[in-house]
């Protein structure tokens, strides 16, 4: 086993996912399959090979510090499920 049911539940909680009955077991077994498949990569000897985080060997992609156009407020809020005035409205967050 690469991953336990408890770990799946924990990750689901972090991702704010709710599963129906039986789904946790199903996903645990599917994730295990994926992780075991990935495990094959560990058989390769990577001594002296730098870990890679990008498929392209690029660095220092910059933009200059110049202000451009922003969206009109209506456009910014167009996809919001609950736009109110100039704002996005959300259920109350307690701080």
């Amino acid at each position: 086993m690469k991953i336990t049911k408890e770990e799946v539940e924990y990750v689901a909680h972090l991702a704010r996912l709710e599963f129906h009955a039986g789904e946790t077991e199903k996903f645990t077994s599917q994730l295990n399959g994926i992780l075991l498949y990935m495990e094959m990569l560990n058989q390769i000897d990577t001594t002296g090979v730098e870990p890679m985080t990008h498929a392209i060997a690029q660095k220092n992609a910059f933009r200059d510090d110049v202000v451009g156009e922003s969206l009109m407020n209506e456009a910014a809020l167009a996809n919001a499920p609950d736009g109110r005035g100039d704002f996005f409205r959300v259920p109350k967050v307690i701080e």
Partner: protein
Amino acid sequence: MEYEPVIGLEVHAHLLTNAKIFCRCSTKFGAAPNSHTCPICLGMPGVLPVLNKKVVEYAVKMGLATNCRINDRSVFARKNYFYPDLPKGYQISQYAEPLAEHGRIEIETGDGKKIIGITRIHMEEDAGKLLHDERNPSSYVDLNRTGIPLIEIVSEPDMRSAEEAAAYLKRLHEILVYLEICDGNMEEGSFRCDANVSLRPKGRAAFGIRAELKNMNSFRNVQRAVEYEIERQRHVLDGGGKVIQETRLWDDGQGVTLSMRGKEEAHDYRYFPDPDLVPVEIGKDWIAEIEKTQPELPQEKRERFIREYQISSYDAGVLTASRALADYFEEAARQAGKPKIAANWIMGDILKFLNEDKRSVKDCPILPADLAALIRLIDDGTISGKMAKEIIDVMYKTGKKPGAVIEEKGMVQITDESALAKTITGIIEANPAQVEQYRSGKEKVFGFFVGQVMKATQGKANPKLINDLLKKMLSGS
């Protein structure tokens, strides 16, 4: 038991760029809600963030100013959590490979000088702002602040008192402002501080359990919150209790720190390198180029002022409070040739005027050259110090040059010896009794004569000249 407080600070500073860190939206404060947003900072799917080069430059400047090692390579990472002010569901920050590490700055408190270590400085994006509705169960989100560039400066847990924490914070603040990479405005949130506080029995090496303090928006509140928290933990430990690792919010009104009581989940941010952003590699050439633009830092400036101008450490501290004020002083001192006197006028009069009007030295109606001219006029005897006090007041109110004010008011000091001698002769002749008293040894009457001369000349005579002439003429020589 005797405890030793252990304090570390995390400071977030807004960088003074024109555009946001990964998009071209403006960073200006105070715009209409959600009007500085675009698909990138709104976290729309499929967009590509591109790093603002100025952010790297500014972060390097702070790294150099705090004696950090600038890493050859640094990488952005995603910090994953859900909160309505974070549209993407992750904040782009740096984690395993930050921009700068292993720095230090010197602070000074009543106990003397001390070095505080800087663990790391990294670049990241700010989140949005939430406004809460008191009357209904809603919060309102403004994403203008989302994507404003920040550097986070993490200290080593090197501070041992609230006073040291405040001194460290002030030092960081003045460096950022001197570098002109942050406006330092704590109320608007451009300079924010969280404090980690724990206690350990004195003499023990291992750290105690710490609480993280948030919501302190002034230097004074940081000091008060840390002081309160030290006492609170001491009380808990002395009572046989245990400090809980938690986040506590400073309540300014009550002057206490309050637990967030489990409202906050245990954090697991699952950092990983952001595949949208390529690594930043800062070569020696780039660092050298940035180094050339570094200004003299406040501490260096203070030391130089003391050495070069022979002013006190207190005066040097006041005069280097901002770069603009230090420049003002240096220019006036240079033109007047009298640094100590220029310092006194600035600290005694000009700063008083400016503070009363809440004005910056940059907007001072009296230019350094005007102050220098005034000092020279006192020096050559044209005006007395007392007149100068009156003149500088008019100069500040009208922006006029000292010469013009003197002319308008007819304030030129009488330095003509023969004219003054004539006046004195008249006074001596009119007061034979007092002359007799003086000559018989009653020197107190001298003051009477000075008063008479001042009156006759309407205070315009040079006091030193009056004294010299009076002495000579009264003694009958």
